[in-house]
């Protein structure tokens, strides 16, 4: 059952989550986002994980009319495939670069070697972008690795840290506090405000992790 909640006077949050993460729902979320982005009365759309935040100028646009529009666009949105690129992320696992590898292995009841294999054998999809500039929420994590977030976040996790948390995989685009667990580290630059396209990854892209040689 899809719900639309207020996010202030100039924001609406469409929550289409229904149990576990759904790929089909996510593709409809992206389609709704694309359709709304063509409208001049929509300021921005922020796809989340099976949800979508839409913002508009409440002084200019009637919120109930926008709610109606959002519902209509969502109802007609199809779960079409989006163009997807494959990006390979080389990772140095464990040791000083992946201080939680042993903990994750224990949680998953695997050896560290098997844990790395479980992480590299997945084909991940960029479901949402947010929290930090260029941070991606990757779906497709082996359920055995779905360790809950830390009870209290680390105050500093380094840029490039390859992390898992809340059932998702991710990579830290900048050094920041985080409650996710650290498996390893990559040298790829996920976000640079001065590049023509600042973010490395787009919604729908496929990501594979490989051991750095």
């Amino acid at each position, binding site marked *: 059952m899809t719900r639309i909640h207020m996010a*202030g006077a100039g924001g609406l949050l469409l929550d289409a989550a229904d149990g576990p993460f759904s790929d089909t729902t996510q593709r409809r979320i992206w389609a709704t986002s694309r359709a709304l982005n063509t409208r001049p009365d929509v300021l921005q759309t922020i796809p989340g994980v099976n949800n979508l*935040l839409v913002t508009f100028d409440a*002084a200019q646009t009637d919120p109930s009319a926008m709610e109606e529009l959002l519902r209509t666009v969502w109802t007609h949105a199809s779960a079409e495939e989006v163009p997807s690129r494959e990006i390979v992320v080389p990772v140095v696992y464990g040791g000083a670069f992946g201080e939680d590898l042993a903990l994750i292995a224990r949680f998953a009841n695997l050896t560290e070697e098997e844990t790395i294999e479980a992480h590299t054998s997945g084909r991940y999809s960029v479901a949402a972008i947010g*929290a930090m500039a260029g941070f991606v929420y990757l779906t497709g994590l082996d359920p055995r690795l779905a360790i809950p977030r830390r009870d209290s976040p680390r105050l500093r996790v380094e840029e490039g840290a390859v992390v898992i948390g809340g059932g998702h995989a991710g990579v830290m685009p900048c050094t920041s506090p985080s409650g996710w667990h650290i498996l390893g580290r990559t040298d790829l630059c996920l976000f640079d405000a001065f590049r023509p396209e600042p973010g490395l990854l787009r919604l729908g892209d496929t990501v594979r992790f490989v051991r750095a040689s």
Partner: protein
Amino acid sequence: MIEILTGSSLNTIQDFGRPHAMAMGVAQGGAMDRLALSYGNLLLDNPVDAAGIEIVFFPFRVRFHAETSFAVTGAACPAMLDDLKLPRDWAITARPGQTLTLRAPERGARAYLTLRGGLDVPSVLGARSTDLKGGFGGLEGRALQKGDRLSCLAASTLRLPAAGYGLARPCPLPPADGTRIRVLPAAEHDVFTPESLKTFHSAAWTLTPSANRMGYRLEGQDALVLTQPLSLFSHGILPGTVQVPPAGQPIIQMMDANTCGGYPKIATVIAPDLRLLSQTVVGAPVHFETITRDEAVQIIRREATDLERLAAEIATLRTQLVF
């Protein structure tokens, strides 16, 4: 050209931020008290969103190396141009060599120094605001340090009365006995227990020292609890969102907040009241009042109309005066 004489890790260049970059995960950013920045820009006949300096660390001192018209708005802080005391929300022209000193506010928390033409720093992702977390925007993506020199985008002087001029009705600041914040219910509002909803609305919350451009943590006697545990998928959040982490004490997301989060949301502060919160000092009480969306829209429209009227009045006044 101006020169910063006092460094801090908190004073930053801000404009209206990057509302269109949130889909990239970039914080909206921008002045925490947008009205105060707007007032300063209107007094200087600048675009309303021209970049100025947001000052939260005092004393703040700056030297003018060229004749420069400037305005000081926002918090009620004693402001001296050399020996001349400036009234609140005031614009004046400094001569080369003069020094402006802003002391700790008597009321409010943030002051804005705007300059004629607006500060000339590169626009990054559509704004000149400093994004401290991302390390871009403003001056090299960082707070202003002693010795930094900044110039303005246009001619740095404006014809002003010799003693300057200011606003008859200065920027509203929260009263000393507490800040009243109007909110709309957010997604998980109804999942909180009836007692918690009552507490949320009736308690005097206290602003803790953990208050920065990313978020303001509040503290109250009773924790807010849910009727059932919730596990939410990550979702977009806006400045003003009142999140309630498991500890039950609310955190209000501010302008540099993360663009996505996963904690339950009890309410959203309406945009015009978020600036009042940004002018609230640590330790002061904060009260929440829930209003309807229609009421919120009326308040937002009124604020927009008031600002347009003020801009028109100042423009008319400037054409009617001889100096």
